């Protein structure tokens, strides 16, 4: 693939990256950071390629270290993100207590003004 194509792809990816996260709420900052972190573990692909083309022992060892590190990044990243997000799961639907709180919120608004 030629340099022009790669440049175009990079520029478009920049826009996608910007846009996709542009409106994330602060609640999700950490999981998003962690998820993005996992994604760059895909350098594993690069590590596998260099390890698979290594012809001497030294190169192979360095490449294998890279494979280990990249795998740790990739696997650990997705697992830890999943663990964080798991906790968002067990959300109860608006309980009765909330209704009370809602009503009281209105009341407070009146008081406040």
């Amino acid at each position: 693939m030629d340099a022009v194509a790669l440049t175009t792809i990079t520029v478009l990816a920049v826009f996608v990256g910007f846009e996709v996260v542009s409106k994330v709420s602060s609640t999700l900052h950490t999981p998003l950071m962690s998820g993005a972190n996992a994604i760059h573990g895909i350098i594993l692909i690069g590590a596998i390629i260099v390890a698979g083309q290594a012809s001497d022992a030294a190169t192979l060892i360095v490449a294998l270290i890279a494979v280990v590190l990249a795998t740790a990044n990739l696997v650990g990243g997705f697992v830890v993100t999943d663990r964080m997000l798991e906790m968002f799961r067990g959300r109860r639907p608006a309980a009765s207590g909330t209704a009370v709180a809602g009503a009281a919120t209105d009341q407070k608004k009146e008081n406040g003004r």
Partner: protein
Amino acid sequence: MTLLDPTWTALLYLVAAVCFILALKGLSSPRTARRGNLIGAAGALIAVVTVFLSTKLDNIPWILAAIAIGAAIAAPVARRVQMTQMPQLVALFNGVGGGAAALVALLELDLAEESWVRVAIVFTLLIGAVSFAGSLVTFAKLQELMTTRPVLFPGLPVLMGAAILASVGSAIAVVFTGELWIAVLLIVLGLLTGVLLVLPVGGADVPIVISLLNAFTGLAVAASGLVLGNVLLVVAGTLVGASGTILTRAMAQAMGRSVTGILFGAFRGGSTAGSTVASDRPVRSSSAEDVAVLLGYAQKVIIVPGYGLAVAQGQHTVAELQHALEARGIEVEFAIHPVAGRMPGHMNVLLAEANVPYESLKEMSEINPEFKTADVALVVGANDVVNPAAKSSPGSPIYGMPILEVADARQVVFLKRSMRPGFAGIENELLFEPQTTLLFGDAKDSLTKVLGAVKAL
């Protein structure tokens, strides 16, 4: 003897790239976040399978073993880590990713003939090394293996300048000569730069630095992709680089900081004045029963959770307290400061874990006007996020950070163990105000006692 021809390979990589885009998209909204993460993992799986099926690889057993080792180390750690230690784990994973990118770039140097390829390589080497070392220091800070305070020593700026100059010099040398040993030197200089970059950052700003290094690592991966001509690495790396940049800015904004300010020592002026020494000025402290009465006869209570709640693992108890109060017809809400705790969103995660309904968790801008009408603000293990110094004393290290306006409530109750300050190491004047009461003790213990007393009312 590969199974996939180049077109199929490219298409599968494209599918993986789309998975990553969808992952980031999903992660931006609470409802789809978990699925998003799984889609990302699926994309990674597709990509790894594709590389094995499409590339002529030697040493496959070794590679598989290395993958197994990496997964075997990371997965259990990731699965067992405590919520409070998440940030340092993320930092660690980020660091190893950067390290991997640097090593890959090092090995690619052999194959690089054109000079633009070498430019991409030195970029990856430097950024990967900075990210690796920086993340390790960050890890050490967050894990409290070292002080969380900014580390400053005379000559730091000079040393930093020298390290950067030497890095640039050897980077240029690598581009022109392609010598391996200079590349190794470059890595060493990158490691040094990474350490020097993060040392002066105050612990409170560390997550922003992790996020920035995360974006850096993304860029290193993208550059690596350019070298290998691998579109997936280019797209994935760029995505992370771009979204990481936006995220870093968003985080910094939430903490009222500027990214450059953080990197170049925003804390330099004030924070060295910070301390962990307990104050001995007089305060009003009271018993769990007193607090229970305050709460039990209020109409509206706002709970402000902070780092201390996380450490004490008191989230379930605080949720029970909410129930107990709501059962008495009291309106209870949680005021969530974006940087309460040790990572952004920490409190939401924690309270969601304890099944606190999402509707009770109010963001700062939403809840701040409500403190005026609250009878009691119950501050559980939080300090900096309610410290009025952020508004009133320009010299303070947290000056400019938006805070929860707890002081507006009729009564303020702090649950904390001592008079020691919070993360930023500065005293909180609010503790000495007339409307403030303190209940000393571990947050979970105190909450349990208060809960019991409320039920007994």
